[in-house]
């Protein structure tokens, strides 16, 4: 790396590495740094707070591997759940950002256009038929989410992907799948329905290393795809004709972006349930902070992680000793935001 230079695309810097050169949006880099600090602070707070308070300095020492009487509480009880929260939040952030990019609509997030509902219906069906292990359920809900997304994509396709059609058909599927889920819940017995209800709200309760393994592996394996997506997003944000004229294979790029987004959101849903509104909110928050022309992926991931960690921290402590499902809190913040977004888009005709 030989440092950055000021170039034409206003607000960008160029990082050169060997023969490669990479555009970095400077404001986004600053925002990412800020979010990272915030995330670190929230994570430490998350590990401090609980039935028993552990001081921040002690938490840091435990994380560095020093022995402590509180090591068990912090490293064995709280840390695995924190990692699950981080991974789930980041995955929802990226998944939402990619689906919103392709649909060119801030409303198009996996929990609005049927992906979470697809994961939900398969998971609840599995619970009804007696499969209740948190290690097996994720794989089923991934299949459900991907299947729902594929159906929405196919039905919205008419010689090309029409963004509004995509969102409306998605919302239709979401409603249909939700009612199917309710059907399974009323069919099943009381205990299953209760377990399903909590899962449906989105909860990190009891998510340890084993339970969060699918999302951690998915994030790791999808990293190259996410790096590709971060660049590919640039061209998809232009209109169809202009993008095609610039030599973009729009159909393939869009399918690729949706696929990456759907897989991440589905796996996250499989692990924690549909934590409402994180996938919707995080990318929009990130974009408002970076003021970029497209949704910034890294910042979306960080905003998603911060949202889930803070929400779960509050969910654990707000009504303690009763633990709320994290989805209750994200929904409490997200629903008013959604209304605001719709009201605003009607007056200003805004789009993603």
């Amino acid at each position, binding site marked *: 790396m030989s440092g950055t230079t000021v170039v*034409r695309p*206003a*607000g960008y810097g160029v990082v050169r590495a060997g023969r490669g050169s990479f555009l970095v949006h400077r404001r986004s880099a600053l925002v990412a740094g800020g979010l990272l600090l915030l995330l670190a602070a929230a994570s430490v707070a998350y590990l401090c707070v609980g039935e028993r308070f552990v001081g921040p300095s002690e938490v840091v020492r435990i994380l560095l591997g020093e022995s402590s009487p509180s090591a068990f509480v912090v490293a064995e009880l709280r840390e695995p759940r924190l990692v699950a929260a981080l991974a789930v939040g980041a995955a929802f952030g990226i998944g939402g950002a990619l689906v919103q990019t392709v649909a060119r609509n801030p409303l198009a997030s996996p929990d609005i256009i049927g992906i979470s509902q697809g994961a939900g219906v398969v998971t609840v069906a599995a619970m009804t038929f007696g499969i209740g292990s948190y290690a097996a359920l994720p794989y089923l809900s991934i299949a459900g989410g991907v299947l729902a997304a594929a159906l929405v994509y196919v039905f919205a396709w008419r010689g090309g992907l029409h963004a509004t059609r995509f969102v409306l058909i998605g919302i239709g599927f979401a409603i249909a799948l939700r009612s199917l889920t309710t059907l399974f819940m009323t069919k099943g017995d009381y205990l299953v329905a209760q377990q399903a209800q909590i899962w449906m709200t989105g909860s990190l309760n009891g998510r340890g290393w084993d339970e969060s393994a699918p999302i951690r592996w998915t994030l790791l394996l999808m990293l190259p795809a996410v790096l*590709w997506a971060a660049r590919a997003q640039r061209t998809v*944000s232009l209109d169809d004709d*202009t993008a*095609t004229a610039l030599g973009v294979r729009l159909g393939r790029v869009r399918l690729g972006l949706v696929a990456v987004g759907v897989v991440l959101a589905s796996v996250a849903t499989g692990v924690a349930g549909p934590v409402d509104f994180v996938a919707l909110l995080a990318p929009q928050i990130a974009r408002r902070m970076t003021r970029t*022309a497209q949704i910034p992926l890294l910042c979306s991931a960080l905003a998603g992680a911060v949202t889930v960690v803070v929400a779960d921290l509050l969910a654990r402590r707000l009504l303690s000793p009763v633990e709320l499902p994290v989805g209750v809190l994200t929904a409490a913040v997200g629903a008013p935001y959604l209304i605001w977004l719709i009201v605003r888009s009607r007056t200003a005709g805004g789009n993603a």
Partner: protein
Amino acid sequence: MSSRLTARGLTLAYEDRTVVDELDLAIPDGKVTVIVGPNACGKSTTLRALGRLLRPAGGAVLLDGEELAKLPTKRIARSIGLLPQTPVAPEAITVGDLVSRGRQPHQAWWKQWSEEDERAVTDAMERTDVAALADRSVDALSGGQRQRVWIAMALAQETDLLLLDEPTTYLDISHQVEVLDLVRRLNRLRGRTVVLVLHDLNQAARYADHLVAMKAGRVVAEGPPEEVVTAELVRDVFGLESVVVPDPVTGSPLVVPGAPWHAEVVR
């Protein structure tokens, strides 16, 4: 006369409605070609097909003798630049950012910005006189400025062929002239081959080296404007009675429509 871009027996259709039927067309290299015709005659559709935005239902568009449909789209983008009729900019994008996206076909994932890119973008922005707007948001520009920014983006692509679909629509007359002069400058100074779709027959006659008149999906006449634009052609293509006189400034044909409606005077 050589032509890198040609259409052979080109048939174009939306769903099952045929818009252009067995069209043969050769775009002369290094010239400004203007396609004119009444609404819905297939002129924009033809331009879209020349820029591979529309797949032919029959026949082919050839670039250097090779079928467009069989060439990698990125390779086409290094030879043909195209500005659609109503391009949409991402919300809040800056002028500099938008123009720099014209470099897309010359870039790769690991090569996101080269000195060549820098030079091409700077050049395109100076040529279209938008360099001073680099940090402004595209949303906040006037119609004329915005059109210049889009043209700058297409120029930054640095293609030998440039296709512009009604670049003067929605602009007032001074901005129309500005855009058309810019096109001519590019052609005369840089030797770019330009194809324009225009609504205004008189502007077409002024700026075209090669004029193509279309009607109902077919080419009715083509050639230098002074040979093509006649009162008969205007009647045939547009169904309008007119008088064609030499333009007092350029000498190119000027179409003056017949007398406007007036009440008959009864004595």
